[in-house]
């Protein structure tokens, strides 16, 4: 414990200093109030103060007030040293903020025990201070946690209702699509009859020839337009449905290399025209637990994207699709890399957003959004980067089963 002693009487100061050392305190002695205050504020870590009532600079009472005025020194235990022992003097001392007083000439035994009391009080108030600070800290932390949690809840709630809404919309769109599509197909089927009839009409009424000619030419295109629209709507609805369904997973252990090969097999037709596949699989990888069909869907999305990217470049030679798997402590890493044009730097963040597409009407913009959802459902991560030599690389990390 650090004790400040302010006493202008040289002898008494020295005696006090010696006793303090003897009793195991770290005593610092000064000879007037001004020095006392200077030291006290400079060092700032005194626990107790023994202040003489009458001193040059500031007297003991003034010092008491100064110390008490600062919240920081609340815990400091102040003992006034005084020759006065009248009641009204004591009241002045206590009111100024002193905790105790000792009448001069002091009895060392008495002072020692009074200092002990002081120590005890300082200790408990310091402890209280620390606890209080901790409590405040925890309270803050809890508050932040609660806020974060609330935000997450709102977010997941919004996502959940978005999922329900999406599934509902997908359903509702299905019915009208059915009869748009069906009617277009019927029209297509009967168009030979219409054509014959129109040609007869043209012969009978040559003045209508120009218009009929146009109808004959445009009708198949109009029907094709409807059917093209329908197939795009269908693709979007299908994508939305699986986007909304992300989260309901079957769980089974499976091997990722096999899953990649299955994916390759499924889009073999599209791939073989554009890309040569170069596999570099690690043997003896631990199995992953999850839904192999969904993972397959992720790989298919990546493969098809690579093929589309290469096709868009319009090169005569096929590109290369690199597939790598690697096992690490607790996870498996899968890399799907191509040597196509890569992803425009400013689009790197956008590719995960639903409905974002660079495929100009060909894509639904849902593939990567769905893929990311699937990987997150498997407690994994999927990252993208552009390679320096060109091309994009998708890195997927999935946790493996505990080896048992």
């Amino acid at each position, binding site marked *: 414990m650090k004790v400040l002693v302010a006493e202008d009487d040289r002898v008494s100061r020295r005696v006090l200093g010696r006793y303090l050392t003897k009793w195991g305190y770290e005593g610092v002695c000064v000879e007037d109030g001004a020095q006392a205050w200077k030291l006290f504020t400079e060092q700032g870590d005194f626990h107790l103060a023994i202040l003489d009532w009458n001193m040059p600079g500031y007297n003991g009472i003034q010092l008491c007030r100064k110390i008490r005025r600062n919240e920081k020194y609340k815990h400091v235990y102040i003992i006034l040293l005084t020759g006065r022992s009248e009641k009204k003097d004591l009241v002045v001392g206590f009111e100024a903020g002193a905790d105790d007083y000792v009448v001069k000439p002091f009895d060392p035994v008495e002072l020692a025990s009074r200092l002990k009391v002081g120590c005890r009080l300082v200790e408990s108030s310091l402890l209280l201070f620390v606890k209080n600070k901790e409590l405040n800290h925890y309270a803050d932390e809890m508050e932040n946690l609660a806020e974060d949690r609330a935000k997450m809840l709102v977010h997941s709630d919004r996502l959940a209702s978005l999922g329900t809404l999406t599934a509902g919309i997908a*359903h509702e769109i*299905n*019915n009208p*699509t*059915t*009869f748009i*599509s069906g009617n277009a197909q019927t029209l297509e089927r009967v168009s030979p009859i219409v054509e014959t009839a129109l040609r007869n009409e043209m012969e009978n009424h040559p003045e209508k020839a120009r218009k009929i000619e146009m109808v004959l030419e445009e009708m198949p295109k109009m029907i094709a337009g409807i059917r093209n629209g*329908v197939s795009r709507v*269908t693709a979007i609805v299908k994508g939305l449905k699986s986007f909304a369904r992300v989260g309901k997973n079957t769980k089974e252990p499976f091997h990722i290399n096999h899953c990649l090969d299955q994916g390759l097999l499924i889009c073999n037709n599209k791939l073989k025209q554009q890309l040569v596949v170069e596999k570099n699989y690690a043997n003896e990888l631990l199995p992953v637990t999850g839904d192999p069909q969904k993972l397959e869907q992720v790989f298919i999305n990546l493969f098809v994207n690579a093929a589309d990217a290469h096709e868009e470049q319009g090169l005569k030679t096929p590109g290369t699709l690199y597939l790598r798997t690697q096992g690490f402590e607790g996870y498996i890493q899968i890399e799907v890399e191509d040597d196509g044009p890569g992803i425009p730097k400013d689009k790197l963040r956008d590719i995960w957003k639903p409905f974002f597409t660079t495929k100009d009407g060909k894509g639904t913009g849902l593939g990567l959004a769905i893929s990311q959802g699937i990987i997150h459902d498997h407690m994994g991560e999927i990252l993208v980067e552009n390679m320096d030599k060109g091309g994009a690389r998708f890195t997927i990390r999935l946790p493996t089963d505990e080896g048992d």
Partner: protein
Amino acid sequence: MSVNILVVDDEEDIRNMLNRHLSLLDYMVETAANGKEAVELLQRKRIDIVITDLLMPEMNGIELLEFIHEDSPMIHTIAITGYVTLDNALSCMRLGADNIIFKPLEDLTELEDSVKSVEGKMKIWQKKLRELRGMKPSK
């Protein structure tokens, strides 16, 4: 011999579309807006194939399939649904449906092929029945 088809769907536009399409392919087509209407119609008319939606008010497609399965097992059934679930598919299979086709029927040939295959089966039986009649001429 003409093939009589009953189209059951609560969506009028889909009903009409299928009616038109199948009529143009020379089938005789009737329509009903739900299972209940379909059952009533089945009591009055000879129907060979029922093409039914699954989600409908009053009486849904599964219930209709159950009724047909019990009451007129000779009638062939094809389910059409936008509500693709494993449960639905299994129910249809169990109730003896010839096929379950998913909306939005982007390609009607699947439906046409199903109908044609049913037609083929019917023809085989008709041939057999004719042969039987030939063997035992009724005098």
